[in-house]
């Protein structure tokens, strides 16, 4: 009886609603059994790129990359994704900040070759590639502090998912992208406001090819 009284009195001071469990129990996402619904994947790694145009063939070296995918998983095998790859490279005195936005599909294969959650991705989208000048600007951009290139991109990826003992799903992925830099805008800063010279077309078939190795987790 004493216990009952104590509990009843205690309950008067407690927000019962706050102690309710989550009503909508989410099905667990596993490396080889994807659950339906919205998922967010985030990872990081390294990229290696080559710039090619009519006049130049330039290795832009290795740099860091941050990768996110917001996916709607239809079933155990197939998902559509809205993704972003953010990468940095350093070429001589220039710094390249490249952001690739894409829409794509992700498909999970049957296990093979010791891989328990192999998957493939294909995606298309657009790229915003910004070149910062820390020293001499490239020809044609002498009056600017940076130039922003824009254009279309395509990419593919292959990877596999793994699972830790605690149940966290993580992945590794090798990705390749190709981007065409078709438009450019010279930029200067006035206080915090970017001032541009208007957009012009780039007609020297500028393209950037990159390969990435990334590792990450299924955040939810």
């Amino acid at each position, binding site marked *: 009886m004493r216990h009952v009284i104590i509990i009843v009195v205690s309950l008067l*001071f407690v*927000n019962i609603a706050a102690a309710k469990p989550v009503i909508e129990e989410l099905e667990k996402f596993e490396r080889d059994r994807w659950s339906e619904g919205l998922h967010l994947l*985030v990872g990081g790694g390294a990229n290696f790129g080559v710039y090619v145009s009519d006049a130049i063939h330039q290795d832009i070296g290795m740099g860091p990359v941050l990768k996110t995918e917001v996916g709607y998983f239809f079933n155990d095998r197939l998902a559509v994704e809205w993704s972003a790859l953010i990468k940095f490279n350093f070429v001589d005195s220039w710094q390249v*900040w490249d952001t690739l*936005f894409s829409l794509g599909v992700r498909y999970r294969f049957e296990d093979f070759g010791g891989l328990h959650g192999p998957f493939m991705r294909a995606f298309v989208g657009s790229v915003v590639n*910004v070149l910062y000048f820390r020293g001499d600007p490239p020809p044609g951009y002498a009056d600017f502090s940076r130039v922003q290139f824009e254009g279309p991109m395509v990419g593919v990826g292959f990877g596999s998912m793994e699972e830790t003992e605690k149940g966290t799903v993580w992945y590794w992925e090798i990705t390749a992208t190709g981007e065409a830099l078709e438009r450019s805008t010279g930029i200067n800063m006035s206080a915090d406001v970017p001032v541009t010279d208007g957009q012009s077309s780039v007609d020297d078939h500028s393209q950037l090819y990159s390969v990435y190795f990334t590792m990450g987790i299924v955040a939810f």
Partner: protein
Amino acid sequence: MLTSQWYFKFLAGILVLAFFGQAHAEEEAPQTEERYVQISRTDFTGTERAINFGLMYAGQWIVYGITQEETIREHGSFSNWITNMWHPEYDKDTYDYNIFKHAISGQLYYQWYRSRGYTEQRAFLWSFMSSLAFEFTIETVTERPSFQDMYLTPVLGSVLGMGMERVSLYFHSKKSWPYRALGFLFNPFSLLPDSQYKFVAVPIAKKDFAGLQVSWSFQ
């Protein structure tokens, strides 16, 4: 001078609090199984959703008005506000704006909705809605909606918010005041009196009694 930069002072402050927190934790090591957690719910009414979104929207207007006062005075107009929303573009901002500052804004959206009790998925979706509302109906006073911001603010913000929330929960669970201060610092919305961050109930079973002991800590 590097030492004069605010983030070095911020980092130094965190280290000092962590040091004192550790000292107090050793003295006041909790004997219970209590843990500080976010308690999600999915039974929101339409009114509750509208209020949560509306409060965030009002906050966005206030913060925008205060932080961008000069830019609004120089570049803002009612005409911009109406016409810009129909012409989204890839903005020309620097990466510290597009990656770091927008991620920090986005994590505040995320943590706000988490503090209301939304699941991670729903907090992300509502952060996305708040971000769209800002891009298309607030910031258009001075600039066109940005495709980069539409993605990066809620996505990077949610990723950052998840990390900050976990760190905050860890510090809150330590139950010593310096650690609790760090918990509030990493997630200011855990300060709100009606936030859905609570100490969990611990189920108990004894020979002569079975029931649920509900633990409660006043903040």
